[in-house]
C-alpha cells in the first residue's frame, strides 16, 4: 500500500514537472529584428571526432555573440530530418551530407533561401562556381559547402613502392600493368571494401564515378546525373566493366568479390600499411588519411603513407577530380540562425578544424598553410585547383535511385554476368523517380 502511495506522489510530482518543463520550453522563440542571439540547433551526421572540432569552429561565434549552439547528431540524418520537417519541428540549421537532400528539401520549400542572408559577392569570391551551382535551386542559393573531400585519391605505402621499385601510374593502362606486376610479385595490388551498414555499396559507386569522369568526361557525367542519358548507356556500362577489371580480376583483391562485399571500407584501408602489407593500393577519398593515422599512429605521412591521383583513362580528362562535401542549410529563419550561418560561410571560421586535420575546405580563401601536414594540404589543393571537378554523382541523385545504385554495385560484384540486367533495373527505378 505504501508503494502505491509513493507512486501516486511520484506521479503527482511528475505531472507538476510536466507543466513546468512545458512552460520553460516555450520562451526561447525570438522576435524579429536584431534581437539578442540565443540558441541555435544544428543537426548533422557527425559523431565522435567530428563534433568536437565543429564545436571549436562555433566557439568563436559563441564568444562574439553570446549565442550557443546545440548539436544534434544522428547517423540516419535523412530519415530523422524528414520526420522532423514533416512534423513541423526542424532544427535551425542542418549539415546535409549531400546536395541531393538539399535539392529535395529546397524543392519542397522546407529551406530558407540564403541570398539575403549572406554577402553573395564575398561568397562568389570564396567559392568556385561549381559549389555555388550545387547549392542553388531555381535561382536561389540554399546551402553553403563547408567541409569537402576529394575522392580521387589512391592510397599507397611509399616505402613498399620504393622497395619493390614500383612507379606511380598515370594512366589506367599503367595501373593495370602495375597491378599485374604486383600479382606476379606475390602481393595483391588492391584492397577494396564496400561494406557500410545501411549504405553498403557507396565506396563502389566512387569507383564508377571516378572511372566515368576519367573515361567519358564531365558532359556525359552531367547528363548521367541529370538522367539525360540512360543507365544502359555504353559509357555507364564501360565504367562498371572497368571497375570489374580491378575488383573481379583473379588475384587483384584478397578474398575476391566476397571480401569486397563483406569488408567495411574502413578496415579495407589498413591492408597496404600492415607489416607485411596485404595489398598495395586503396582507392577512397581524402578522409582515408584519418583511418590510417588512427589505426597506425606510428606511421609518418608522406614516408609511410601517401596518395596519388586516380589515373586518367582518356588523356583528355587528365585533371578530372570527383569529390564530396557537406553543405549547411537553414530551416528556421531566426536572427540567431542567420548569425551562425554567416559565421559558417567564412573561411576563417574553419581554420581551427583545418589545422586539427581531417578537414579539407572548398573555400578558396582558406590559407593552405594552416593544414597540419603536406598530405592534407595536397588533398585540399587537389580539390580547389582541379581543372575539372564533379560532385559525387550518387549524392546528387534521388534517394530511390541512390539506393538502387548501391544495390546495383552489390549485385554486380556478386553476378557480373548480369550487368545489363542490373543496369536495366536501376534505369527502371530512375525513370520513375525522375518523373516525379
Amino acid at each position, binding site marked *: 500500500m505504501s508503494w502505491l502511495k509513493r507512486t501516486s506522489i511520484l506521479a503527482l510530482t511528475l505531472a507538476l514537472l510536466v507543466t513546468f518543463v512545458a512552460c520553460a520550453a516555450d520562451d526561447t522563440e525570438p522576435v524579429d529584428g536584431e534581437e539578442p542571439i540565443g540558441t541555435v540547433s544544428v543537426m548533422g551526421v557527425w559523431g565522435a571526432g567530428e563534433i568536437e572540432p565543429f564545436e571549436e569552429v562555433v566557439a568563436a561565434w559563441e564568444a562574439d555573440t553570446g549565442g550557443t549552439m546545440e548539436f544534434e547528431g544522428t547517423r540516419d540524418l535523412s530519415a*530523422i530530418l524528414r520526420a522532423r520537417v514533416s512534423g513541423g519541428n526542424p532544427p535551425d540549421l542542418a549539415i546535409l551530407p549531400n546536395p541531393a537532400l538539399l535539392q529535395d528539401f529546397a524543392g*519542397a520549400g522546407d529551406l530558407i533561401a540564403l541570398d539575403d542572408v549572406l554577402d553573395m559577392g564575398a561568397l562568389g569570391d570564396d567559392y568556385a562556381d561549381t559549389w555555388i551551382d550545387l547549392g542553388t535551386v531555381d535561382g536561389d542559393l540554399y546551402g553553403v559547402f563547408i567541409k569537402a573531400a576529394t575522392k580521387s585519391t589512391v592510397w599507397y605505402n611509399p616505402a613498399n613502392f620504393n622497395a619493390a621499385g614500383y612507379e606511380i601510374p598515370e594512366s589506367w593502362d599503367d595501373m593495370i600493368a602495375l597491378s599485374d606486376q604486383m600479382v606476379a610479385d606475390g602481393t595483391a595490388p588492391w584492397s577494396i571494401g564496400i561494406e557500410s551498414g545501411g549504405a553498403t555499396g557507396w565506396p563502389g559507386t566512387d569507383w564508377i564515378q571516378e572511372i566515368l569522369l576519367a573515361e567519358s568526361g564531365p558532359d556525359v557525367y552531367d547528363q548521367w546525373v541529370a538522367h539525360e542519358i540512360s543507365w544502359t548507356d555504353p559509357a555507364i556500362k564501360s565504367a562498371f566493366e572497368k571497375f570489374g577489371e580491378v575488383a573481379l580480376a583473379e588475384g587483384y583483391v584478397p578474398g*575476391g568479390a*566476397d*571480401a569486397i562485399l*563483406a569488408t567495411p571500407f574502413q578496415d579495407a584501408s589498413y591492408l597496404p600499411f600492415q607489416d607485411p602489407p*596485404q595489398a598495395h593500393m586503396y582507392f577512397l577519398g581524402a578522409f582515408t588519411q584519418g583511418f590510417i593515422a588512427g589505426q597506425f599512429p606510428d606511421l609518418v605521412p608522406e614516408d609511410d603513407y601517401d596518395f596519388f591521383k586516380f589515373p586518367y583513362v582518356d588523356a583528355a580528362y587528365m585533371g578530372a577530380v570527383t569529390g564530396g562535401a557537406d553543405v549547411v542549410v537553414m530551416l528556421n529563419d531566426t536572427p540567431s540562425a542567420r548569425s551562425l550561418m554567416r559565421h559558417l560561410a567564412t573561411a576563417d571560421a574553419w581554420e581551427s578544424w583545418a589545422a586539427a586535420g581531417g578537414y579539407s575546405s572548398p573555400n578558396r580563401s582558406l590559407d593552405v598553410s594552416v593544414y597540419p601536414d603536406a598530405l592534407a594540404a595536397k588533398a585540399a589543393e587537389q580539390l580547389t585547383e582541379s581543372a575539372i571537378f564533379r560532385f559525387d554523382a550518387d549524392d546528387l541523385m534521388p534517394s530511390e535511385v541512390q539506393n538502387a545504385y*548501391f544495390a546495383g554495385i552489390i549485385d554486380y560484384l*556478386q553476378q557480373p554476368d548480369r550487368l545489363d540486367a542490373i543496369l536495366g533495373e536501376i534505369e527502371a527505378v530512375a525513370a520513375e523517380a525522375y518523373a516525379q
Partner: protein
Amino acid sequence: MRPRLATIAWLYVLPAFVLLGVFLVYPVANTVYLSLFSGRDTSAFVGLDNYRYLLTHPETVIVLRNNLLWLVLFTAASVGLGLILAVLSNQVRYEAIAKAIIFVPMAVSFTAAAVIWRFMYIYRPPQFEQTGVLNAGMAALGFDPVPWITNTTLNNYALIAAGVWMWTGFALVVISAGLKGIPTEVLEAARVDGANEVQIFWRVILPMLRSVMLVVAVTLTINSLKVFDLVYVMTFGNYQTDVLANRMFKEMFTFGNFGRASAVAVVLLLAIVPLMLLNIRRFRREQ
C-alpha cells in the same frame, strides 16, 4: 446506481483511451487514408496503385518473402528452442542460472545486439586471420570463411539467428512457467500408466502446454512481422534482407514516399490482425 457505475468505469479507461486515440488510432486511420495517394506530397489519389506495386514489384516481393521466412523460421526456432530448453532445464539443479543466461539478450538493446552480432559475423578474406567467431570456427574446421551478412542465400538466416538469440529467452521463461503449472501428479499418473519419458513428453506435456505455446507463438509471430531494428541496424535491408517494417521506414523517411510507405504499413497491419484475433479467441474460450 447503474449509470454512476458506468461513469466510473469510463473514468478508469479514459486516460488510456485518450493516449491510444491520439498516439495510435489517429495515426493508423491517417495511414490507411494516405495509402490511397501517391508521391511525396500525397496529393494525387491513386486508389490501390500503391498496393499493386507492393505485391508485384520484384524488390518488394522479396520483402514479402523475407517476412514469411522470418515468420516461419524465427517463430519455429524460438518456440522450439524455448520448449526444449524449458523441458531440459526443468531437470537440473542450476535451472535458474541457465534460464537467466538464455534470457539476458532480452535486456539488450537492438543497437547493442547489432554490434554483438556484426562482431559474430565479421568476414575477412580466407588468407587472413578471422576476427569473427563463426568464421574462425569455419577456418578451424578447414572451411573457407563465409560472408554471412552479404551472402544472399545465408544472410536472412544469419539475421534470423540473431533474432532467435534475442527472443528464445522470452519463449523459455513463459513455457517454463507453463511447465511448472502442470501438476506433478499427472506426470506420475502417466508414468504409472506405463509411459516412458518420451511418451510423457509427446502425449501429456506437449498437449497440456498447447495454450501456453500458442500465446508464445502468436507473440513471436507478431514480432517476426514487425521486425525492424535488427534489420535496420545490421543491413538496412541490403543484400535482399529487407522486411516490411524496414521497407516502410525506407519509403517514408529515406525516399519520402508517404503513400507507398502507408501501403506497406497497412499490409503489415492486415497480416497481423488475424493472429491477434486468434490470440483473443483463445482467451475468450478459456474464460
